[in-house]
């Protein structure tokens, strides 16, 4: 038997569940336990490649240094590359993030939850806003693309705050 009260509660629970699930990468094909979802790293970096795969769109990028004059490089002089795993490429495209809108060289800012093992990868996880700087226009030292006039925002909630 379904009562009106029960229906209301059921609808509310369903809505809450949908809201919760909707914030996670939909229909994941792997566990997210490898990521430390309690930590958030915020980067401004330069896109080196986007892989628009069906299961996840991945952005590979070189984080910029604090001066925002160059990217961080290893001892061999080569840029250090990070990977951030997004939702599926079609879901990311619906948000405006695609190979066409983030070509190599794009400067952007993002918050990610890093891998627990310290490797240079993370997941965007529960979202937040990604900001794209205007072409060839890095932010001021210590700042992110959300501070640059003419930026483009993707998603809601603002740029996440770092959390260690």
């Amino acid at each position, binding site marked *: 038997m379904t009562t009106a009260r029960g229906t209301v509660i059921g609808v509310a629970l369903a809505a809450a569940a949908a809201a919760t699930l909707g914030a996670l990468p939909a229909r994941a094909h792997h566990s997210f336990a490898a990521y430390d979802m309690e930590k958030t790293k915020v980067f401004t970096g330069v896109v080196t490649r986007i892989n628009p795969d069906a299961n996840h769109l991945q952005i590979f990028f070189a984080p910029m240094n604090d001066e925002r004059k160059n990217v961080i490089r290893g001892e061999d002089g080569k840029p250090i590359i990070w990977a951030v795993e997004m939702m599926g490429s079609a879901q990311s495209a619906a948000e405006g993030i695609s190979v066409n809108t983030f070509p190599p*060289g794009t400067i952007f800012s993002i918050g990610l939850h890093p891998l627990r093992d310290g490797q240079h990868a993370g997941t965007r996880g529960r979202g937040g806003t990604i900001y794209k700087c205007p072409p060839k226009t890095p932010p001021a030292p210590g700042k992110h693309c959300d501070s640059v006039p003419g930026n483009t925002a993707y998603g809601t909630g603002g740029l996440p705050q770092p959390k260690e």
Partner: protein
Amino acid sequence: MLEAVWRATASAALILGGTCVWAQQVADPGFKSVGRGAPLAADLRTYEPVGASLIGQFDAPASAKTFVGLSRDGTPPPGIKPLPVDLFTTKDFYKDKALWMDPRYYRCNSSAAIEEMWGANGDRLIGPSGAASAPWGRCDRDYPRAAIVSPYKFKTAQEHYEALLAETRKRGGPTQHTYATVPGEWTGRYMHPGFTPGNAYWYRMRHNQVPTILSLLTPEYQKRMVQQEFHEGNTNAAQWPSQYCWPEGFMRRWHEYATWEWDITVTPSLVQILAGVARNFITNIHIGREFKMDGAVPRLGADVPRWYGETIGFWDHDTLITWTSNIQGWTVHGAFEYSNKMQTIEIYSPNHDANGKFIGLNHEAIFYDPEALVEPIRIVRNYIKTSGYEQGDPYVYIECNQTIFPINGRMSPVVPGSVIEYRVPDMFGRPWAQIWEQYFEKGMQRPADEDIFSFK
């Protein structure tokens, strides 16, 4: 081996003769169309292959086969002045750019012949002394470029499709088929296009000098093709994508060995073509749909390039006219690379025998890629229907499980349990070229890539 295949298919053509398909290179629409059915400028069946090769029984030893070419052991043929350096002797093909458009740089071999010189498809023509012993093909042969480029005036696939649609509307179309009227006899299984008798088309890459193919390409894509020729003909480090279970890519559908039989299913709203060998080629033609035009390229779905594109189409009676866009750029070994801007217009027309019986399809495809091609090109093929789905083996969806890995830059089967050094491929960054550049191009003067970290 391939010559044997050619001969076998030619024999089969004689056996199966009596149908009109062999005389028909392009389907005649029965009226002068703005964008379909234009005759080919030259009939490839009257041209001989360009490259050096061995002809004989498929399973015969190389010693029992006949060499076709001008010189077997790399010695310059009489009457031909060799270049001071060529693809097979160079230490840096990038420095030879001024020679790339000279057929002698390739010893007058076709792209397919270069690919096969080390034994890619059977007999090896390179001698024990290595690449410098590469044979010479026929410098006096070449299929005309005019028969490769599109005969139509259109600069874009969109213009082409809209013109064909307008033409069809003037003729009272497009035809709105129902299950009762859709040409159901198309549904069924079609012969392997590469082995279909009389199915001669230039994209097999056997009838052209390499510079003729290069002349179709923009400078960046010319460089990429020469890079491939060098590593297939000189370093013997071919990187065929499907050997690693990488995607085959859109244009491989036209390569002679990329697909076996084709399964075609026709419904009023969707025509589906299934084919494959190492990967699945699935072409879904959405009848009556329109592309979104607000992105980088026309598309049906999300702003995500698709390995085999997205396709719309309409019927003009029993002729199907399609437009494919939103294609992921990739490569075709033995041929050339193409970009994400690739789009095609394809026309599928029924072929009938002398009694009017449906025997298969004529497939005219026009390729537009302003990034890779200097002008649109055209490939025309025929498919022979062999049966319905009531008989024969069903289509097997292919799951490609990787058993071959690049070891020191060359393909190598690896025994399960082995431990190898494995570099994760940069799948959207020309991974084949990254292998070449890492292992075989040290010290070469490769043009620098754009510096994406310059933003001062």
